[in-house]
């Protein structure tokens, strides 16, 4: 399948973007349409420790407990539509027939019953695990020990054949280099790992996912750069954390968006995955629906853009919560209540034609809370998107442009605007700009330079990327 690179923006201006509307809405599942006038809550969950003991206990946990609780609560509170997300645990990718199939099929059967009885719009995203190990080999035939690349693809098939409506993965290509670079605050290495190697790896796996989806008449959703940009974000943390500076995290987010985009360029339709905080950037470019998470995913992440990140979402997620009891019901029910009510608020704003105003309130609340929030504000996200499409056909140059644009936006606002930075954050920003400026103008030279510079990075093997 050919990869169709984005070289122009699907939106004419930032202001055209708003939550609950995408240029290219997507229908799937049991009466679900995303991006066509409503925001849908997306509830994600993790089984209790020990539930993975055997296939039957895992199925019971996911189906009889978690899925049932979710559906009951959705009806109880009157939510018109809900999406479930199941992030697979490694037992499911290791033995798809034993562990994955009964779960996927069981969830769908129960959802079908509720849909038939109540008419509620329902769908489920299956995010399969990417267990591939860079040191063993990311491509088919390379990992002789576990056959992880093969297993990964098989588990996508099993999901698609047994009830998944939407397929996602958090692919980890390039992470071995990004992990090395992040601890050294080496933006070039990070760009090489995620922007370059990661994009190459996605161009290998995503056409396969899109094919599987087509064959099974389901949807290929999208990817996220959890392995890279979210790791930066969590390490940068909040105002008490000092593991890495937040300016570095912000720039990695912009670079990550050039990678996340690849899934859509390979034919995936969206909605992309919630944990991709780069969603506003890729939506601005491609006009496909995006899943986002923020103030109501505190069960999983405490980010510095809890409201802002809702600005242009189409699905609103809790990211993930472990199943356990709370006073108000089970944990999945409690967080579904939170995201479902937030979606209801957005939908009411749409009905009353106040959606752009609510979008701006969300955005303004966190615009200056962190540099990462700042570059993801929809106006700035749009600018980063523009930088990417300008070099749309070159995965290296567009990643670099994304990073540079973000860095410059932050620098400028820090100088003359309201975005305050600590001294260390400023130092890092200057170093990033210097480092990025020093990079070659041409992909071949960049590749050559990096293959040399990072040849000793533990676990890095150019063969994984056919280099």
């Amino acid at each position, binding site marked *: 399948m050919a990869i169709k690179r984005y070289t122009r923006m699907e939106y004419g201006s930032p202001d055209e973007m708003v939550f609950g509307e995408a240029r290219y809405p997507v229908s799937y599942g049991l009466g679900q349409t995303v991006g066509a006038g409503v925001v849908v809550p997306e509830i994600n969950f993790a089984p209790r420790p020990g539930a993975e003991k055997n296939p039957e206990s895992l199925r019971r946990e996911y189906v009889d407990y978690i899925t049932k609780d979710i559906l009951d609560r959705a009806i109880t509170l009157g939510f018109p539509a809900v999406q479930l997300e199941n992030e697979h645990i490694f037992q499911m990718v290791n033995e798809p027939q034993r562990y994955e199939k009964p779960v996927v099929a069981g969830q769908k059967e129960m959802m079908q019953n509720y849909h038939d009885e109540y008419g509620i719009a329902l769908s489920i995203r299956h995010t399969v695990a990417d267990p591939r190990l860079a040191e063993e080999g990311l491509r088919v035939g390379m990992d002789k020990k576990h056959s992880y690349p093969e297993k990964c693809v098989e588990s996508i098939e099993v999901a698609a054949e047994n009830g998944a409506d939407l397929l996602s993965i958090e692919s980890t290509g390039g992470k071995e280099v990004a992990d090395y670079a992040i601890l050294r605050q080496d933006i070039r290495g990070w760009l090489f790992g995620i922007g370059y190697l990661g994009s190459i790896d996605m161009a290998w796996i995503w056409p396969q996912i899109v094919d599987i989806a087509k064959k099974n008449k389901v949807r290929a959703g999208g990817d996220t750069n959890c392995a890279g940009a979210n790791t930066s974000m969590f390490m940068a943390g909040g105002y008490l954390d000092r593991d890495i500076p937040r300016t570095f995290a912000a720039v990695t987010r912009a670079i990550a968006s050039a990678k996340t985009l690849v899934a859509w360029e390979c034919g995936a339709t969206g909605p992309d995955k919630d944990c991709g905080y780069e969603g506003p950037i890729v939506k601005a470019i491609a006009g496909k629906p995006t899943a986002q998470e923020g103030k109501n995913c505190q069960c999983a992440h405490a980010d510095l853009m809890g409201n802002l990140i809702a600005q242009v979402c189409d699905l609103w997620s809790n990211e993930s919560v472990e199943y356990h009891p709370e006073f108000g019901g089970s944990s999945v029910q409690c967080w579904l209540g939170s995201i479902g009510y937030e979606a209801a608020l957005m939908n*009411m704003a749409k*009905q009353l034609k106040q959606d752009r105003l609510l979008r701006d309130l969300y955005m303004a609340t966190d615009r200056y809370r962190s540099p990462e929030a700042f570059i993801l504000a929809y106006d700035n996200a749009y600018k980063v998107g523009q930088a990417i499409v300008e070099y749309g056909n070159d995965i290296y140059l567009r990643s670099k442009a994304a990073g540079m644009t973000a860095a410059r936006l932050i620098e400028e606002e820090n100088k003359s605007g309201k975005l305050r930075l600590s001294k260390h954050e400023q130092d890092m920003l200057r170093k990033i700009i210097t480092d990025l400026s020093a990079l070659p103008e041409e992909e071949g030279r960049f590749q050559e330079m990096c293959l040399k510079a990072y040849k000793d990075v533990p676990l890095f093997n150019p063969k994984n990327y056919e280099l």
Partner: protein
Amino acid sequence: MLDLKSVNFDRVLRRYDIQMETKESPEELAARMVPKDPYLRKVVEDVVFMRSKNITEDVGSALKNYSPEEVIEHGLIKGMDVVGELYGRGIYYLPHVMVAAEVMDKGVKLCEFQMKGARETRGKVVMHVAEGDPHDIGKNIAAVLLKSNGYTVVDMGRDVSIQDVITTVENEKPAILTGTALMTTTMSAFPKISERLRERGINIPFICAGGAVNRAYVESYPMGVFAAKAIQGPALANKTMEGYDWRRLRENWDKLTAAKE
């Protein structure tokens, strides 16, 4: 205030309750379940439709044709069966059950009056709410349902100390003990009670309920049997009277409570 006229509320919320309103009416369902005999039928209907005013007269008429035991069994208790079914199907609400139980109670008293000895109780149940816990509504509901199913209830109320529970069990020798706890900081009384009962060689089902506890917690100490809803009380009690011990109640829990959720 914003003008809400243009709003399509369907995109914001869906009233599944209205959408699902049961087509079958109480009358239709009762019609299928009540006995054919006109005297007993009236008694059943009095209970089902909560006709407190008619019950005295109708039980009187029934008693002219049937023994008090028969009126209780095939009239009054049958009526509560129908009520339970209606509640289970979401046609009746809880207050219906409570008021019907009172009507039935009135009828039972009349029958007992005509019986040789006292009416036989199905068994004795001691009930309490844990020490420091003021939440007793659930326990009260459960008590009414157990009574209306023929059990003698010793209701110790709420905020009951462990020692009082033990003493009462020793004195009353019930077939079942129940405990309710809505607070995670009071539920720890239950394992202690279980421990003390064991020390005294007492081995009866200890049905524990209330928002704070769950099945896993209750099954972590000897004798504990979980109940999620008041309506499960009679089912668990009935099996106890059939000879199930607490272990067997636990083993069959899913089945025993399945219909009653």
